[in-house]
């Protein structure tokens, strides 16, 4: 029993104590010490003012003309990574973002995409109510200057 208690005590110390590792490593976004993580979620605050949120949807047209919704499975990455690596840069005007996403999407498809679309609904909440603005960006590799 003494032997078991010693092993259990070691595990308890490790389970608790190793939580210091991600803090020391100062990894914020890409923590690699799972399940020992820092628990600093949603810590930032914002000042008073209009509340803005976006609903983003990715879709595409395949070579056979079929419209498809692009989800995590089609990209092979989580929606958080897709947002961070492709969608946000695309919205901010990075001209390489859409071609990179296009290439990622088509690498394993039997029915390749010929066009991808990003539709964004922007909700703005103010004291006087909620306003919605819609925009759609599209990318076709063969069309010069497509947005």
């Amino acid at each position, binding site marked *: *029993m003494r032997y*078991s*208690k010693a*092993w*259990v*005590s070691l*595990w*308890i110390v490790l*389970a*608790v104590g190793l*939580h210091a590792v991600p803090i020391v490593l100062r990894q914020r976004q*890409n*923590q*690699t*010490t*799972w*399940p*020992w*993580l*820092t*628990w*600093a*979620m*949603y*810590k*930032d*605050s*914002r*000042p*008073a*003012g209009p*509340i*803005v*949120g*976006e*609903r*983003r949807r990715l879709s595409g047209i395949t070579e056979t003309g079929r419209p498809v919704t692009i989800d*995590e*499975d089609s*990209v*092979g*990455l*989580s*929606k*958080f*990574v897709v947002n*961070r*690596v492709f969608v946000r840069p695309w919205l901010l005007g990075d001209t390489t973002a859409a071609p990179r996403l296009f290439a*990622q999407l088509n*690498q*394993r498809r039997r029915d390749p995409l010929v066009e991808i679309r990003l539709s964004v*609904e922007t*909700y703005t*909440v103010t004291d006087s109510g*909620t306003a919605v603005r819609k925009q759609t960006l599209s990318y076709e590799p063969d069309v010069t200057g497509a947005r």
Partner: protein
Amino acid sequence: MKIPSLQELAEWWDRYWFTPAPTVNLALARVLAVAAQVFWLFPSLDEQLVRLQSNPHFIHPQFLIRLVATVFPRETWFTPQAITVVWWSIKALGVLSLVGLFTRVVMPLFALGSWFLVAHRFSYGDVHHSEAMFAFFLLSLSLSPCGEDLSLDAWRKRRAGGAPAQVSPLARWPFALAHLLLAMAYLSTGLTKVVFGGLRWMNGYTLQSRTLQDALGRDIPLGIWVAQQHTLSILLSVGTIIFELGFVASLFLPRWRTAFFAAALAFHVGLHLVGGHGFFGHLTVVLILLICYDTPWLRPQPRLAPA
């Protein structure tokens, strides 16, 4: 103030973690936790395969995956066939753990296997907190005598004329550790909000903004509505800070523990309904603590809270 001697500290440690407790509580926790993992929380095979095949290499490999890949390199061993075999093997170990057959061997393998699958999923660019607490709990259970009751092992032992332990000094610590880790996690989230966000975190706008973004992304009408309610958002922000900073008190108030766990349950259900935050592993741990941790309704307790 008197500084406690090493002997006194060791006695305190022993009392806190190793107060004898009924094994049936632990066994019920095993059944609930393993059933939740096998039938609900188990990482999807499709997702494992899609991530593996869509990415030529790991993006930010977790330490566990780096460790495994050192011995079994990705190019050779991380193939769709190998991952499929590993996935089904871990699932089978889960079924054996659930019925409690060869629990001492099978359960640690199942827990570590589950760690492997989650860590593999989180090696492609993003990592989430929702599975962490449950992973610790599952591994802790596997290191305890959780197969001494409600198991085929116990049945076999009784049939062979033996008597499975009804009370054990090792039957309580997995609950106490999960409780401590929960308190640490809540305290950490609460403190970082106060330190980095300041009092402004409770101005209502912060929560409205977060909720709107999450609810829009996940199509949650209730969340979109809450995001438009300023006064309600102030109240919810204040409630969140009080809960996260206050939960640590449950470590020192054993009589109120059930109320704290119930509040945690309500907190996570609320987060899910409003923001779509699926902390289901976390929720499962809280629910199991609520049902099994020092609860008198399963069997009389030898001794309740540590002195």
